[in-house]
């Protein structure tokens, strides 16, 4: 589903964010990526959604070589990959429901489809009772759940979550991880970037460890080893 071959990313002038990274993630996997701050984890996520171009190497997502993806194709790629970042990136003037609708509206989807999908994804993340509240009227965990719901509206094959629990307490964090596992059970490949030792150890799934832009560990049933 995701294949990186010798991917190197150098930010000008000479920051080596990623160095000769080789990675193969199969469809339906749940993979955690761990590593200290500034080791290139977010850069990896950005390369996967076409926000950054690799300096070297080859990237294939869902059989599609996106190494030299053009601006016109980026929207197509992003409708196949759901993304969740640490900061919630919700519009405060819109309700959670409207925030999720927005993602479909701006992609030109018909209202009937929006009416059909939005309640479904809000139900998956357990927000069906709070969807008409504004972001600042709910907890951080609930905001992040709305972001996950929004990431699901295109029924993506891949969900990338870059430190989704970074701003949350452990109870809210656990809930988010549960939701990610649920989504993974539906067949979506999940890539979770995290700092959180407990989360990784509880998951008992594949763990990839990055250090200074290099992959230094890849365990099928991993532990947070740093």
């Amino acid at each position, binding site marked *: 589903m995701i294949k990186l071959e010798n991917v190197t990313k150098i930010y000008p002038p000479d920051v080596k964010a990623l160095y000769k990274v080789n990675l193969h993630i199969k469809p339906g996997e749940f993979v955690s990526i761990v590593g200290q701050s500034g080791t290139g984890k977010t850069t990896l996520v950005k390369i996967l959604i076409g926000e950054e171009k690799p300096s070297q190497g080859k990237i294939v997502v869902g059989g599609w070589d996106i190494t030299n993806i053009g601006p016109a194709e980026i929207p197509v*790629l992003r409708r196949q990959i759901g993304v969740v970042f640490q900061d919630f*990136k919700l519009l405060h003037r819109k309700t959670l429901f409207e925030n999720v609708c*927005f993602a479909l509206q*701006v992609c*030109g989807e*018909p*209202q009937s489809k929006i009416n059909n999908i939005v309640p479904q994804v809000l139900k998956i993340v357990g927000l069906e009772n709070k969807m008409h509240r504004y972001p600042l009227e709910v907890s951080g965990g609930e905001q992040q759940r709305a972001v996950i719901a929004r990431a699901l509206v295109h029924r993506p094959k891949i969900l990338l979550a870059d430190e989704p629990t970074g701003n949350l307490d452990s109870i809210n964090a656990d809930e988010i991880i549960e939701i990610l596992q649920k989504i993974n059970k539906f067949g979506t490949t999940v890539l979770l970037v995290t700092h959180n030792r407990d989360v990784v150890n509880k998951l008992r799934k594949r763990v990839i460890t990055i250090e200074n832009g290099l992959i230094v560990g890849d365990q099928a049933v991993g532990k947070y080893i740093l």
Partner: protein
Amino acid sequence: MFLLSILRVIKFSLQDLARNVWLSVITIIIIVLALLSVNLLLIVKVLGLAAIGAVKEKIDISLYLKSDGEESRILALKSRISDLASVKEVAYISQQAAVESFRAKHQDNPEILQALLELGTNPLAPILVIQPKDINNYEDLIVSLNKIEDPLIESRNFADHKTMLAKINDLTDKASRAGLALSLLFGLITALVVYNTVAVAIYTHKREIGIMKLVGASTWFIRAPYLISGIVYAGLGVAAIIIIIYPLLSFFQPYLAVFFYGFKINILEYYNNNFLTIFGLEFLVVTLINFLASLVAVGRYSKV
């Protein structure tokens, strides 16, 4: 689906205008000022051309002849003048015709008519009214007319129309140049202001744009609202100028009519007859300026 997208884009664009109301108002005011100067330029042009046309119409040279001149000799003189290269037309007004037109002109003034009666004889001279072919050869014509020595000619009345024309020309030229410079200046300011307004609008929507990109909105969908706002500004600006210019024209038309007394100048009618051309063209030009300015701003501030 495409239509739906367009409707959504227009909705976003209008929301955007509303959200930055004051910026929108200022933008539209600048557009209105630009259009006002363009329209003043147009009015000056129209008035100038009309005035010149009217003066040209009225330019003729009168040769006053002796009252006792024989009709046949007068006609001979007339045909001789007609043969001059720079003459367009010569009209002969006989003594009888002259007095009749005098009476017609003063028919409401019994005192003058009474005076004419008391004179007993016809005091008016027969006249040859000469129209020049080309106003620029006016001096040549006068030279050749001065060369004609005929005992029939009583007096020559060569008013200096040329200086007057030159003055009108000069005045409209200067006004046009000032108007053009002003219009270009306002055009430039419009482009800058629209550019700035769109840049600010994009800046205030940074979050939205970021999210739109993240969830896979197409580039055109992200950019179109800002391009459309440029067009909406143009539309609102032209609508405003129509609302402003008509009362102005109606207000000044009577004064113009007095000032250009005797000339057929109706600026209001001119605007009515050319409504679509004038405002359509103005809309197109402003739209083009705004579209280009927005395009540059969008290109610069909303990189994919």
